[in-house]
């Protein structure tokens, strides 16, 4: 059978402020009918640009060379790179369709979802409104939107995130294209929703025979859905292989490094056991650095909107030198707890004691003694540094504020030590934050958090904005420093595998409530609660064979 899409020696460069930058460099790929081809890579690898080229969606600043030939179901061929605008428009939606990363920004907020699906149908040939609408209802039912006859007249904001992604898939599917390009289709979604969307894509491929080009950075997703994998690095395809072969026997060094960097559940358990056994006697009775009792945090409503309870009745403790991993999906309240511990969000009910200070009703003056003993690492490396100060000035800020140094210059020796501790060259101290990469910035952020040698470090999703290989390095550094300096830590993350790597104990949050708490072996090895089980089963593992088994296990859970 001939390929539905053939990319031959594709090269793309973009005009930027710094002159042209090459994003894709000599890529050749083809996709067979009914096949799922995963294109994997980290940021800057050119995978998204390659995907957009398949639909001719590159911005005007792009210059393209090579050929991208699509073959429709009727055998018509279109060379996307060289074809005229009108022909390209005909091919879009009919021969190739796209599923985007962020479903909420892809649906036009001022039109009903039905209007948007019907529009796509009627853009390709004379179809009566009634017939098109009928077709739209069918396709919505096909992607699992309940009550489609009624829901078709709803606006996008009336659907949940997972449902929106289903609607985006319905739009891609409606004209029966031979190829769907899915650009990080589950990245913006919670892990339980991700599992559902991946299931949907698999079913649709099986039922309609549509080929899928799956763009992703997540090796678990690849293992779950792909038939064949192309690994991209710096604009080039470094390796192409069937999925089983790639995971079992990766050929390229980059692929190997990438696979090795993916955190796997169970890796941290041994380390946690070892640490637990080396605790001194009486440690369990020592005064905890954090003790939350029936903690309640409410965001007051404004203008008659109801108040929102973000955290409800949570009790937990962190003892000296202990790492507590706090896991949950979006809206679970995990970040709120982290911010409350640092005094950034007021406590509404119950009690929260941090380093001996009661946070409920605490004023700025009450927190004075506690502050130098606590460090914080933020999620977004892009905004966690004042863009107008150098890295050295930023890292010195805690020392200056707490009177350990007169000025940033006077603190420079300590700053250099800190930078070295997080494995950044001293000279980086003189750079500005935007001159560092995301991983480097998170390391500098760690240096700032540790500047005062705190007893407690709060890390709010410190690696979730990083590429997986960068994340691996930062996590490793984190573990080393924790071992060396012995600070207690609250580590917040949405990723079970990441938390498992570092934490002594794991607490699972769901909608503001604490669902389950225990050591990694307890929570991940033998979860007691349904929600934990579902969360665990939804997390795709980077191994196609194991993932197939887990999929079955998840299905059993959902049925049961």
């Amino acid at each position, binding site marked *: 059978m001939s390929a539905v899409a053939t990319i031959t020696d594709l090269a793309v460069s973009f005009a930027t402020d710094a002159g042209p930058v090459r994003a894709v460099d000599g890529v050749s790929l083809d996709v067979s009918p009914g096949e799922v081809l995963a294109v994997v890579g980290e940021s800057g690898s050119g995978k998204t640009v390659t995907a957009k080229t398949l*639909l001719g*969606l590159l911005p005007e600043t792009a210059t393209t060379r090579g050929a991208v030939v699509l073959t429709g179901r009727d055998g018509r061929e279109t060379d996307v790179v060289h074809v005229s*605008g009108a022909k390209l*428009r*005909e*091919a*879009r*939606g*009919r021969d190739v*369709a*796209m599923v*985007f990363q*962020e479903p909420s*920004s*892809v*649906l*036009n*907020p*001022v*039109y009903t979802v039905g209007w*948007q699906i019907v*529009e*796509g149908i009627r*853009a*390709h040939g004379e179809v009566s409104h009634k017939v098109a609408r009928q077709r739209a209802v069918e396709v919505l039912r096909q992607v699992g939107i309940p009550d489609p006859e009624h829901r078709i007249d*709803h*606006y996008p*904001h*009336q659907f949940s995130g997972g449902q929106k992604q289903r609607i*985006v898939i319905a*739009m*891609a599917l409606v004209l029966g294209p031979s190829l769907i390009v899915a650009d990080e289709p589950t990245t913006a979604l919670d892990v339980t929703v991700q599992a559902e969307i991946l299931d949907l894509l698999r079913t649709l491929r099986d039922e309609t025979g549509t080929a899928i080009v799956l763009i992703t950075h997540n090796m678990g997703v690849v293992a779950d859905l792909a038939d064949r994998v192309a690994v991209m690095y710096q604009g080039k395809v470094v390796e192409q292989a069937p999925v089983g072969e790639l995971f079992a026997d990766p050929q390229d060094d980059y692929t190997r490094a990438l696979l090795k960097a993916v955190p796997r559940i169970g890796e941290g358990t041994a380390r946690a056991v070892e640490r637990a056994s080396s605790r001194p006697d009486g440690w369990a009775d020592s005064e905890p650095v954090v003790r939350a009792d029936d903690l309640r945090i409410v965001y007051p409503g404004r*203008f*008659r909107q109801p108040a929102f309870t973000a955290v409800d009745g949570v009790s937990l403790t962190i003892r000296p030198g202990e790492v507590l991993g706090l896991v949950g999906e979006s809206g679970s309240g995990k970040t709120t707890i982290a911010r409350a511990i640092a005094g950034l969000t007021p406590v509404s009910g119950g009690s929260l004691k941090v380093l001996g200070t009661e946070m409920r009703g605490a004023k700025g003056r009450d927190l004075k003694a506690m502050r130098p003993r606590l460090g914080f690492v933020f999620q977004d490396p892009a905004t966690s540094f004042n863009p107008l100060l150098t890295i050295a000035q930023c890292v010195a800020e805690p020392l200056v504020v707490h009177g350990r140094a007169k000025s940033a210059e006077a603190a420079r020796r300590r700053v250099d030590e800190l930078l070295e501790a997080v494995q950044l060259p001293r000279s980086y101290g003189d750079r500005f934050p935007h001159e560092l990469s995301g991983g480097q910035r998170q390391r500098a952020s760690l240096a700032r958090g540790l500047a005062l040698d705190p007893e407690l470090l709060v890390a709010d999703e410190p690696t979730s904005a990083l590429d997986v290989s960068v994340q691996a390095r930062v996590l490793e550094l984190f573990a080393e420093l924790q071992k060396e300096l012995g600070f207690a830590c609250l580590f917040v993350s949405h990723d079970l595998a990441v938390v498992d790597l570092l934490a002594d104990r794991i607490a699972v949050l769901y909608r503001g409530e604490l669902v389950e708490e225990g050591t990694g072996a307890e929570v991940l090895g033998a979860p007691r609660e349904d929600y934990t089980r579902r969360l665990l089963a939804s997390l795709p593992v980077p191994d196609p064979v194991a993932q197939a088994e887990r999929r079955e296990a998840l299905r059993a859970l959902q049925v049961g």
Partner: protein
Amino acid sequence: MRFLLIIPTVFILVTTVFVLMRATGDPITAALGGRLTPDQLAERIHAAGYDRPILVQYLEYLRGVFTGDFGTTLSDNRPVTEVLTTYGSATLELAAYAIVVALLLGIPFGMISGYFRDRLPDAVLRILAILAYATPVFFAGLLLKLVFSVWLGWFPVAGRVSTNGEIAMQMAGADSGFMLVDAFRTGDPAVVLDVLSHAVLPAAALGLLTAGVFLRLVRTNVIGTLGTGYVEAARSRGVAESRLVRKHAWRPALIPIITVAGMQVAMLLVGAVLTETTFEWRGLGFQLAEYLQARDFVAVQGIVVLMAVVVAVTNFLVDIIAALIDPRVRY
């Protein structure tokens, strides 16, 4: 809830005007200061009640504003309310013409400019829009007058209607104050034509200024929505480019456009004041300039308060309309 802000807003505006108008003293001294003896002046001030405690005067002023009583003008001894109702319609008519011109030019050209962004059509339209904005409306008026009235003789130099037309209206009993409406009521096409020919130049002067602002507004917002994910997604489904602009980019852009366009009502009124002065278009703006010359601050205060309240109320209505258009608010 945010809509309730209209109440404090109007209150603040009304108070601001009072404070500013009385900061320099009483209006009678300002108007007649040099012309009367101190005794006569004191008598007039006492008669008008300007020697009472300022707080009492303020409360009386507030009561007057909310009951529609703005006092009596000093220069020609007319109730200010009568001035407002007599000349308000002329200003409203001029503003309506300008809005029509602005919408007809600003929206389509703004969309074209946004779509062809940074290419030739956009370059030409943008420079024209900046020119329209940078030209003071009174200078544009004078230029139009010079070229089309004085040199070419196509349109009358000033006013809203010729004497014959005015007589025809009086005979027909048409006195709504809206010249075009009245002209139609005479049933005489010549009168309608006469009124329209008087309106062309003022409407063009004020309309071009407003159109320039609208064009910029539409352009910026359409560029913003053209760059969004949903436009790219619609493009990926094979939707035609013109439809992307007319439907996908335009409708979401409309919400901020309406909100900001509402704020331009203030600019439109200021423009109307200046245009009326240029073309002797006897509306509130023309009247305001006259009273300013006469230093009749009672009249000035009434006209300014009315205009400020009109602006605030229009903004309020526009906000509600914008909210009604947005399905995220509606549902």
